[in-house]
C-alpha cells in the first residue's frame, strides 16, 4: 500500500539545501488520495528516533553555580582572604597562648557572615529579576490534529513526528515544519519568523527556490490565520526552521554588559589598591620588627578597610530600584545589569512592525474628486479629518463597505471601534474600521444592500480584481449595484467614467494622468493602494431576479464608473516620532531593520523621523537631479535605504562604511542572519547596540545585541527568552524612558560610589598611622564594618533616587572606552581630597577623646607597645594617672566609636556634596526624601550603636559624651564649602583645569 511512510524520511540532519529539497520533493495527487498517515507503530518508532517535537530549552547555568559566583565574585575573594587570615591568626594564637583573645575568631566569623550575607542578597536579587521570564511561559500544551492509520486524532504537539500527516485550520498554530499537500484558502502569518505581517497564502505548489518564500511550506510555531490545509511533517523540534534559529540564538556568545565591565574595572582598581597597601604594610611591619602574627592582623585590617563591603550590594539595590521604576513605565528588565546598558546605548536597531508602527493596517489616504484626502491614522483619533460631505465620498464609502468580507466579531459594541476585533484580512479590516468610523453602521448598509453574487479575490485569478454584486433595496430603485475593488490600474482599465463631485464624467486623459499621479504618490508613501469602482446596472438588461453566474461571468464587468482610491498603511505609533527625536538629541542613532518592502520601510522611516525631514537617500538625490544613481556621491546622502539582497553582497568594509557614513539608515527585506550582521557591524564600530524585535527571526540579533528588547504583547516566546528587557506595551517610546533611566542610574551610581569610596580613607589611615607611628588604634575593624555595611548603606542607596542634574537626554551617549564609571578623577576627589578631610575629622575626634581622658597627643606617638601590652597595668598618662589594660582599652574603643561617629558626621556633608557633580546643592535642592531619611537613619544608627546597652560587649562600642559628636563638625562644614567652591569653579570655567582634574 502506498502511504506516506513510503517517503521514508531519512535521519534529520539539517543540511543546507535540504529544506529546499523538501519543498520540491515530488508529491503527486494520487499520493495524497491514498493518504492514510503513519501507522501508530511507525510514529512511535520515529518519536523514539527523533525525540519529541519541542525546542530544547537553552542551557541554563545551574543555580548553585550562580550562587557560588555571587559568593566568590567581586570583593568576596579579598574578604575570604581576610576571614581565612583571621582564622589562621586565631589558630596560631590558640596554639601558642594559654588564653587566646577571641578577637580574631570573632572578626573571622563576622567577615565570613558579611561575605555570605551579601552573596545571598545579590543572588536573591538576581534570581528575582530572572524569575520575570516564568510569567511569560506558556503552560498550555499545544495540540495537533494528525491523521494516523486513516483516522484523525488529536495529539499533543510534542508527539508529532516526521512523516505525520497533519491538518491545520484557521487559528491553529502550526505544529511542525510541514509541506502542504492540500489547502483551501489557507493563509499563514509568518510574522514571527520573517517579520512580515501580511498573511501569506499556502498551496501545494512550489513557487520559489527559497524555502522561506515558497508557498508549499508552513513553519513550526507560525499561525494559520484562515482556511485549512493538510501537510506532511518534514521536520520536528530543533530541526525546524524555528528550532534552528533558536539554536543559533542560544549558541551565540554574548559579551559582558557595559556596567559589568565597569564594575569589574572598578573592582580591579580597589583590589589593586588593597593588595598593594596590604602587602606594602605587611612587609613594612615585618621590617619594623612586628611579629608575623601582628603583621597578618595588620594585613586583615587593611583589607577590611580598603574593601567597600557594602558597595556591590548598594549597586545591586540601585539597579533593582531602577528596574522597578522602569517596570512601572512598561520596561520589564530581565537582567539587572541591562538597566544601565540602555543608558549607554549609542545605536538602536529597531524592528518596524509593532514597535514603530501600530501593527494594524489603517486607511491613510483617499483619492476622490481628483484630490488626495488624508484620513486620521492616530491611535486615539486625535488627528485631522477630511471633508466627509462629498457625495463621491459617500459612494466610495459604500463601495468600500459593501465590497468587503471583513466584519466585527460579536459582542464588542461597547469597545471603541479601533479596539474591536475583526474577522477578515488586514486591508479589509482597515477599510471596515475606516468606514465604520466616518460613516457608521456598516452592518445597516450591508443589510440594506443584500449580496446577490460575489467573485472573491483569488490569487490564481490574474485579473487581481474582486468584485461583488449587490441588490439595491431602495423601494423606488430596482437596479443592481456592482461594486468592485482591486489593484488600481486593473480597476481603471475597466472604467470608462469617473465620479467627480457626485457626477459621472467621462474618463479623459487628463483625469487619467491625475489618477496616475495620485497612485504614484500614494504608492511612494509606502502605502498599499486599492481602487474602487461601481456601476448601477441598467434595469432593462438586469431585471430583478437576474441569475448572475460568477464562474462564467454573464454580466457587465467593463465600462464601470471609477469612484476613488484608498490607501492603507500600518501607521506609526503616535509617540514614536517624538521618541525618535529624543533619541536623536540624545545622540543615539536609530536604525530601522525590517523584513518589509523598502518603500514601505522608507515611508515609515520618514514618518517617524528615522529619516529626518530634508535628508535624502542616494536615490532621492538621483531623482531630484535627474542623474543615474551611480553618479551620485554617496557621501552627499546622509540617509540610506538598503535592501537585504544588496546587503548580501556587501563586504565587511563596505558595511562599516555605510554604518559610519550614514546617520540615518533603513535596512529593508532583511533576514535573521542579516540582522545579526548589522548588529555585529555596529558593535565592531564600537557602538553599544540595542535591538528591538518581536519575531523569532529577531532573536539571534536580540541575543547578540548589548541589550535585546523584546515586545511583551506581540513578541514570541523565543524572542522574549533571548532578550534582556521586555517592553510590556510594545511601544518604542518606552525605550526612551529606559534610556533616560539607564543614563540617570549611571550618573547616580557614580555619585553613590564616590560617596562610598570616600569613607575608605578615614578607614585606612588609622591603620597606617597605627603601624607607622605606633599610636593606639583609632578605628577598629568592627567599626569599619559598621560604617560600610551600616551607616553608609542607606545614604548610598538614596543617591540612586537623585534627580538628573541637567537634561541627560540632550547629551551624547557615554563612550565606553573613555567615560568610565570610576575614573582617576573620582578616585582623586574621593581618596585624595574629601577622604583626607574626613580622615582629619576622625583623627581630631580621636585626639580629643584621648586628650580629655588624659592622654595628650604628644605622648601618644610610640605608646602603642605598652598600650597593647596586656601585662602593663599601670600605664601612665600625661597627668600621671595610671591605667590598667582594660581601662585604657575602653578609652580606645570609645575612640573607635567617636571616630565612627565622626565619619558619620563627615559623611553627612559628603552625601550632600555627592548629590551633584556639577550643580550647586542650592540649585539641585533637597527634594530627595530618601536621602533625607538616609541622613536621619545613619545618625540614628550611629547613636544606637553608641548608646544601646550591651553594645560594649557585642561590638565594643561605648557611649560618647555629647560634645564628642561635634568634633568633626568643622570638617563636615569644610567638605561642604570645599566641594561647593570646586563645583562653582567647574561651572564658571567649563573645560578649565578644575573640571579636567576633578569632574568625575
Amino acid at each position: 500500500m502506498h502511504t506516506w511512510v513510503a517517503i521514508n524520511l531519512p535521519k534529520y540532519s539539517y543540511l543546507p539545501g535540504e529544506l529546499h529539497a523538501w519543498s520540491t520533493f515530488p508529491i503527486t495527487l494520487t499520493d495524497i488520495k491514498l493518504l492514510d498517515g503513519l501507522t501508530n507503530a511507525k510514529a512511535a518508532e520515529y518519536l523514539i528516533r527523533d525525540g519529541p517535537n519541542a525546542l530544547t530549552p537553552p542551557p541554563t547555568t545551574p543555580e548553585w553555580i550562580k550562587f557560588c559566583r555571587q559568593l566568590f565574585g567581586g570583593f568576596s575573594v579579598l574578604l575570604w582572604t581576610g576571614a581565612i587570615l583571621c582564622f589562621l591568626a586565631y589558630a596560631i594564637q590558640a596554639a601558642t597562648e594559654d588564653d587566646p583573645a577571641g578577637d580574631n575568631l570573632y572578626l573571622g566569623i563576622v567577615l565570613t557572615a558579611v561575605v555570605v550575607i551579601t552573596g545571598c542578597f545579590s543572588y536573591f536579587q538576581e534570581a528575582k529579576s530572572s524569575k520575570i521570564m516564568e510569567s511569560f511561559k506558556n503552560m498550555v500544551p499545544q495540540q495537533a490534529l494528525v491523521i494516523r492509520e486513516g483516522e484523525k486524532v488529536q495529539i499533543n504537539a510534542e508527539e508529532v513526528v516526521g512523516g505525520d500527516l497533519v491538518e491545520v485550520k484557521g487559528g491553529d498554530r502550526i505544529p511542525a515544519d510541514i509541506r502542504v499537500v492540500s489547502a483551501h484558502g489557507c493563509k499563514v502569518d509568518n510574522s514571527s519568523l520573517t517579520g512580515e505581517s501580511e498573511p501569506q497564502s499556502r498551496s501545494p505548489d512550489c513557487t520559489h527556490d527559497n524555502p522561506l518564500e515558497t508557498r508549499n511550506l508552513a513553519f513550526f510555531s507560525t499561525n494559520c490565520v484562515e482556511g485549512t490545509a493538510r501537510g506532511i511533517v518534514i521536520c520536528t523540534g530543533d530541526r525546524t526552521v524555528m528550532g534552528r534559529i533558536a539554536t543559533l540564538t542560544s549558541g551565540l556568545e554574548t559579551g559582558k554588559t557595559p556596567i559589568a565591565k565597569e564594575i569589574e574595572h572598578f573592582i580591579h582598581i580597589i583590589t589593586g589598591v588593597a593588595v598593594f597597601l596590604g602587602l606594602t604594610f605587611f612587609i613594612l611591619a615585618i621590617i619594623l620588627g612586628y611579629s608575623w602574627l601582628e603583621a597578618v592582623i595588620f594585613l586583615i585590617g587593611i583589607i577590611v578597610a580598603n574593601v567597600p563591603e557594602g558597595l556591590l550590594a548598594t549597586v545591586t539595590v540601585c539597579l533593582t530600584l531602577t528596574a522597578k521604576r522602569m517596570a512601572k513605565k512598561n520596561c520589564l528588565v530581565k537582567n539587572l545589569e541591562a538597566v544601565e546598558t540602555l543608558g549607554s546605548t549609542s545605536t538602536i536597531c529597531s524592528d518596524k512592525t509593532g514597535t514603530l508602527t501600530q501593527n494594524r493596517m489603517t486607511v491613510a489616504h483617499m483619492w476622490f474628486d481628483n484630490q488626495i484626502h488624508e484620513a486620521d491614522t492616530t491611535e486615539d483619533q486625535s488627528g485631522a479629518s477630511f471633508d466627509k460631505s462629498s457625495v463621491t465620498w459617500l459612494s466610495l464609502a459604500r463601495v468600500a463597505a459593501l465590497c468587503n468580507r471583513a466584519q466585527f466579531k460579536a459582542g464588542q459594541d461597547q469597545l471603541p471601534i479601533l479596539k474591536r476585533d475583526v474577522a477578515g484580512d488586514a486591508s479589509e479590516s482597515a477599510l471596515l474600521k475606516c468606514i465604520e468610523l466616518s460613516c457608521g453602521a456598516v452592518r445597516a448598509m450591508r443589510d440594506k444592500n443584500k449580496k446577490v453574487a460575489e467573485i472573491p479575490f483569488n490569487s490564481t485569478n490574474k485579473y487581481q480584481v474582486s468584485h461583488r454584486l449587490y441588490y439595491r433595496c431602495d423601494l423606488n430603485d430596482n437596479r443592481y449595484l456592482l461594486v468592485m475593488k482591486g489593484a488600481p490600474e486593473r480597476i481603471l482599465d475597466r472604467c470608462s467614467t469617473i465620479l467627480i463631485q457626485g457626477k459621472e464624467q467621462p474618463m479623459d486623459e487628463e483625469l487619467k494622468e491625475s489618477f496616475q499621479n495620485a497612485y504614484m504618490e500614494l504608492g511612494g508613501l509606502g502605502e498599499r493602494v486599492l481602487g474602487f469602482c461601481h456601476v448601477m446596472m441598467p434595469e432593462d438588461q438586469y431585471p430583478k431576479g437576474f441569475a448572475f453566474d460568477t464562474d462564467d461571468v454573464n454580466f457587465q464587468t467593463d465600462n464601470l464608473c471609477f469612484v476613488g482610491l484608498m490607501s492603507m498603511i500600518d501607521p506609526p505609533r503616535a509617540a514614536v516620532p517624538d521618541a525618535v527625536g529624543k533619541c536623536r538629541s540624545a545622540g543615539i542613532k536609530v536604525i530601522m531593520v525590517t523584513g518589509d518592502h523598502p518603500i514601505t520601510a522608507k515611508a515609515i522611516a520618514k514618518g517617524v523621523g528615522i529619516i529626518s525631514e530634508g535628508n535624502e537617500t542616494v536615490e532621492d538625490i538621483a531623482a531630484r537631479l535627474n542623474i543615474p544613481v551611480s553618479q551620485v556621491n554617496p557621501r552627499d546622502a546622509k540617509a540610506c535605504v538598503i535592501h537585504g539582497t544588496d546587503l548580501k553582497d556587501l563586504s565587511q568594509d563596505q558595511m562599516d562604511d555605510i554604518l559610519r557614513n550614514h546617520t540615518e539608515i533603513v535596512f529593508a527585506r532583511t533576514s535573521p542572519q542579516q540582522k545579526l550582521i548589522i548588529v555585529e557591524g555596529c558593535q565592531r564600530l564600537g557602538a553599544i547596540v540595542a535591538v528591538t524585535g518581536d519575531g523569532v527571526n529577531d532573536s539571534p540579533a536580540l541575543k547578540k545585541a548589548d541589550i535585546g528588547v523584546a515586545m511583551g504583547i506581540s513578541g514570541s516566546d523565543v524572542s522574549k527568552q533571548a532578550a534582556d528587557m521586555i517592553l510590556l506595551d510594545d511601544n518604542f517610546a518606552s525605550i526612551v524612558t529606559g534610556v533616560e533611566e539607564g543614563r540617570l542610574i549611571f550618573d547616580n551610581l557614580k555619585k553613590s560610589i564616590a560617596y562610598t569610596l570616600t569613607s575608605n580613607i578615614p578607614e585606612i589611615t588609622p591603620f597606617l598611622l597605627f603601624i607607622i607611628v605606633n599610636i593606639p588604634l583609632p578605628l577598629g575593624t568592627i567599626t569599619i564594618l559598621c560604617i560600610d555595611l551600616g551607616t553608609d548603606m542607606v545614604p548610598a542607596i538614596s543617591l540612586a533616587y537623585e534627580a538628573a542634574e541637567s537634561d541627560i537626554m540632550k547629551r551624547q551617549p557615554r563612550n565606553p572606552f573613555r567615560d568610565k564609571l570610576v575614573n582617576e578623577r573620582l578616585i582623586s576627589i574621593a581618596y585624595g581630597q574629601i577622604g583626607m578631610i574626613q580622615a582629619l575629622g576622625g583623627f581630631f575626634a580621636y585626639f580629643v577623646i584621648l586628650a580629655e581622658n588624659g592622654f595628650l597627643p604628644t605622648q601618644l606617638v610610640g605608646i602603642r607597645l605598652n598600650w597593647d601590652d596586656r601585662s602593663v597595668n599601670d600605664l601612665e598618662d600625661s597627668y600621671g594617672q595610671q591605667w590598667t589594660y582594660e581601662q585604657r582599652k575602653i578609652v580606645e574603643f570609645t575612640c573607635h566609636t567617636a571616630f565612627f561617629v565622626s565619619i558619620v558626621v563627615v559623611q553627612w556633608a559628603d552625601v550632600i556634596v555627592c548629590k551633584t557633580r556639577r550643580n550647586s546643592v542650592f540649585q539641585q535642592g533637597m527634594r530627595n526624601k530618601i536621602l533625607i531619611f538616609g541622613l536621619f537613619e545613619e545618625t540614628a544608627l550611629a547613636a544606637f550603636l553608641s548608646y544601646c546597652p550591651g553594645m560594649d560587649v557585642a561590638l565594643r562600642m561605648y557611649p560618647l559624651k555629647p560634645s564628642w559628636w561635634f568634633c568633626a563638625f568643622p570638617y563636615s562644614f569644610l567638605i561642604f564649602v570645599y566641594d561647593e567652591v570646586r563645583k562653582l569653579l567647574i561651572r564658571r570655567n567649563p573645560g578649565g583645569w578644575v573640571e579636567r582634574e576633578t569632574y568625575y
Partner: protein
Amino acid sequence: MASTEDKPATKENTSSWKDSFYNPRTGEVMGRTASSWALILLFYLVFYCFLAGMFALTMWVLLISLDDYVPKYQDRVPHPGLVIRPNSLDMSFNKSDPLKYVQYVKHLESFLQRYNDSQQDNNEDCPRGEYFLQDDTEDMNKKACLFKRGFLSLCSGLSDTNFGYSEGKPCVLLKMNRIIGLKPRGDPYINCTVKKEGPIQMQYFPSEGRIDKMYFPYYGKKAHENYVQPLVAVKLLLTKDDYNKELPVECRVEGTDLRNNDERDKFLGRVTFRIKVVE
C-alpha cells in the same frame, strides 16, 4: 583572517602599555606631561598644607581648652588597678642560682630608688590616718607625704639586698595605680591568698598591708611632682613543701569601697600572679 587582524592590535597594545609610563611623542610620564604633573602636585601640596593648617588650628583649640593639672574626664578611671613589682605575673627562679633571680632583684632595686631616704627627706611627714588635703592652698604645687624604703622593713632591700630571693622567701611589692583625686574610704589594706591546700605564711610591710590615707588624694603629675605611691610588700614565707610548685597568689585591696571583683578587668583592685621557686 582573524590572526592577521590581531597582530597589529597587540603591537599597538604593547606600545600603549609602555606609553602609559613614558610616551616619548607627547613627553607624558604616567599619562601626564611634566607641567600637568607639576600643577596637580602643586595643587595637592597647597591643599594638604591648608588641611594641615586647619588640623593644627583645631588641635590648638583643643589643647588650650585643656586643664594642665587635671584631665577633663576621669570617669574611665573610677577605680585604681593593682600592680606588682617585679613586673612579672609569672615568676620562676632557682633560689640557689643568683643568675635566675637577679633580674627581679635589680628590678626591685631600681624601682625603690625613688623611695630612698635622700629623695624622701624633702617630703612631709604627714599625719597618719587622714587624707592629706591641700585644696585650700593657692599654690598649685602640692606637697607630698614621704614614704621611705625603710617602711618596707625586710623587703626594703636595705638589710637583705636580695629581697629574700636567695633564701626562697621572695618579696613582692604591690602598689595601687595613681588616680587624681581618689580618696578611698575606710582603711585600705592589701590581703594576699594562695589558692592551695595549706595556707602559706606571709609577712606584710607596713604591718597588716595597710595603705595609709595620707597618701590620698593625688593631685596630678604637674602639681604633685614629688608624690610617691604608697607600697605594700608581701614576703612569701615559703617552706620546703612549697618549692618546685607553681603557686597562684591573689592579692586584693580590702577594707574600702574600691572595686576588687570586676569581671572584665582582672587588675582592678586585685592582681593574680604565679610564683615558682625551685630549690
